[in-house]
């Protein structure tokens, strides 16, 4: 059948600069470039290009750029080229469209409508280079009232288990299988260096990463891959994954060909079999079932570590979150609809869920309305793009954020959204040994550490500007936010005033 699908990208090669060194050819797992000795030039198979930009970065002479395929659309704003191409693909394959990373559609990004405050005259801003500026947070559940013996300065009852983050940011769940071991290792190393946590995702904890277990949050998801007492016992915290922002209501499917020996051992499933995560947990059909699982895990680990529950931001997320808190979750994780994924049905990714900003604001307020906000920790996830997003998230009410796409971008990800092909040229979303090798965890960890250091400096600058020297005082401090370009309802949900008010 003739393929009606058009190329999406086009390789622009500056002939004057191309030295035919072949670096591009060797860099491309999609086999786009080819040094044609006969023609004496480098040719490109544009249709195979996914715009990962590896070749652009690798080219020693900056001879390359990727551009859009210049095909005009039909002229209809309704039948856009992309819409029609999706139809062409499905007409060709009869399959569900798969895609990766986060929702790329132009839904409003509320972060960009929230502006931060700074001190002027009445209140000094604080210079983070001169004064201590605290970004440490603890996550876990707390008693509403702490019982202490003040004279002896001792706790009358121990504090429930907490995890300590030196920066209010953790790396979100990405399983070994969906990302390479080197990528996971880089995040583990960075987490150790930064004093924060990475999350194993639902793929188990690879034995090479056991040395990083104390900065791992291990996930228990519907497939229960890699879960055993050792896995639970090794971790710093446990996370029950109910849903994921990129694909609420959808399970996962890692095809058998990606279940290599290492993945198989880590997930504790036979090599070559499909790893299927059911859409729901089949032992959680209601909130009381969640409570059972939470306490099963706490029992299994002797109440020694916090248990987080992660849900996708969906319409009634506030009520769900309240239920989770009451079901014993120590940490509530809300994953907004722009959160990334290794693979998701495109229609789900692009159309299901709600923005994290609104979800976070609603959850925080609901927990406060129910007087339980200060007894649980709240983590926001789903496309935290910068330090300013972190500051906004915390000001809206989060204790900390989960961040994955940004660290992946630090590792080299160019958001080509082709993770599911397994041919990631950056060595991130692949298990192919030659590609995995491209990601030296040492460099990768350094880059992530640099990024987070940079962000931390910025967070400190922003906090200092607000006259705040501890992140505790930023949490839920919505007065530090002002909205622009938002309607009354949005302001109400976000709980912020309009700029100028």
């Amino acid at each position: 059948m003739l393929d009606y699908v058009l190329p999406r990208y086009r390789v622009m090669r500056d002939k004057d600069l191309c030295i035919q060194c072949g670096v591009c050819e060797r860099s491309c797992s999609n086999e786009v470039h080819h040094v044609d000795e006969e023609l004496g030039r480098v040719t490109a198979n544009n249709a195979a290009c996914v715009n990962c930009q590896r070749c652009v970065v690798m080219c020693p002479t900056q001879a390359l750029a990727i551009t859009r395929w210049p095909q005009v659309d039909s002229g209809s704003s309704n039948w856009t080229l992309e819409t029609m191409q999706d139809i062409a693909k499905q007409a060709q394959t009869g399959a569900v469209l798969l895609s990766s990373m986060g929702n790329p559609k132009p839904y409003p990004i509320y972060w960009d409508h929230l502006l931060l405050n700074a001190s002027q005259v009445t209140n000094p801003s604080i210079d983070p280079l001169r004064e201590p500026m605290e970004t440490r947070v603890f996550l876990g559940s707390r008693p509403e009232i702490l019982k202490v013996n003040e004279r002896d300065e001792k706790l009358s009852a121990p504090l429930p288990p907490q995890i300590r983050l030196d920066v209010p940011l953790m790396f979100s769940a990405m399983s070994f299988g969906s990302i390479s071991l080197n990528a996971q290792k880089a995040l583990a190393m960075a987490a150790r260096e930064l004093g924060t946590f990475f999350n194993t995702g639902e793929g188990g904890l690879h034995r090479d990463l056991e040395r990083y277990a104390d900065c791992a949050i291990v996930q228990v998801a519907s497939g229960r891959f890699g879960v055993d007492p050792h896995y639970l016992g090794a971790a710093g915290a446990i996370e029950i994954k109910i849903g994921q922002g990129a694909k609420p209501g959808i399970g996962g499917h890692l095809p058998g060909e990606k279940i290599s020996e290492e993945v198989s051992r880590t997930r504790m499933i036979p090599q070559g079999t499909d790893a299927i995560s059911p859409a729901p947990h089949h032992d959680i059909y209601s909130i009381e079932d969640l409570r059972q699982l939470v306490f099963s895990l706490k029992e299994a680990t002797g109440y020694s570590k916090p248990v987080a529950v992660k849900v996708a931001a969906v319409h009634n997320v506030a009520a769900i979150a309240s239920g989770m808190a009451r079901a014993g979750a120590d940490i509530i994780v809300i994953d907004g609809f722009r959160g990334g994924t290794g693979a998701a049905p495109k229609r789900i990714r692009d159309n299901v869920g709600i923005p994290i900003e609104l979800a976070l604001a609603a959850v925080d307020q609901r927990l406060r309305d129910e007087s339980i906000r200060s007894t649980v920790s709240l983590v926001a996830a789903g496309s935290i793009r910068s330090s300013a997003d972190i500051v906004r998230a915390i000001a809206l009410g989060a204790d900390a954020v989960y961040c994955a796409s940004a660290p992946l971008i630090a590792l080299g990800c160019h958001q080509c959204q082709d993770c599911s092909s397994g041919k990631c040229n950056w060595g991130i979303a692949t298990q192919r040994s030659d590609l995995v090798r491209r990601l030296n965890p040492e460099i990768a960890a350094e880059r992530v550490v640099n990024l987070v250091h940079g962000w931390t400096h910025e967070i400190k600058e922003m906090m200092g500007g607000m006259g705040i020297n501890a992140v505790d005082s930023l949490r839920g401090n919505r007065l530090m936010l002002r909205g622009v370009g938002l309607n009354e309802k949005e302001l109400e949900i976000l709980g912020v005033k309009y700029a100028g008010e």
Partner: protein
Amino acid sequence: MKRIYALEEWCIDCKRCEVACKVFHSKSKDPVKAFLYEQPKPRNRVRVEGNRTLSIAINCRHCPTAKCVEGCISGAMTRNPETGVVTSNPEKCVGCRTCVSMCPFGAVTIEEGPTHPIAFKCDLCGDELGVPGSPSCVAACPNRALIYVESEGN
């Protein structure tokens, strides 16, 4: 001395090291000129062996008792006693290939020189023979598969 070590675990067969080496050892130091216009063609002294599944960059180990120096009939190949850097003097080299037959790593090649074929090998990107510079291959490696570190021997 500081040596370049290649780490095959991270070598990705991109050969940017070769490109960088060639460019550094060109007259113009410009990749486009070096590759397309200069005559004689600049030569890379680092060489990537293997393919995508397994590869490693090979360059001179700057051996303490360098076989190539021992074998050199012309006095072109020398090891600087202070720096430990082994270099071949293009003025003196006659291209006899004794060094090629002696080097246990295949790190010396005989290629066309200004007047006749001569030996080419890693000079650690020094500006003058025997004085190490900052190796271009190491700088160009995108994956730290080449590292330039103080070694535990001279």
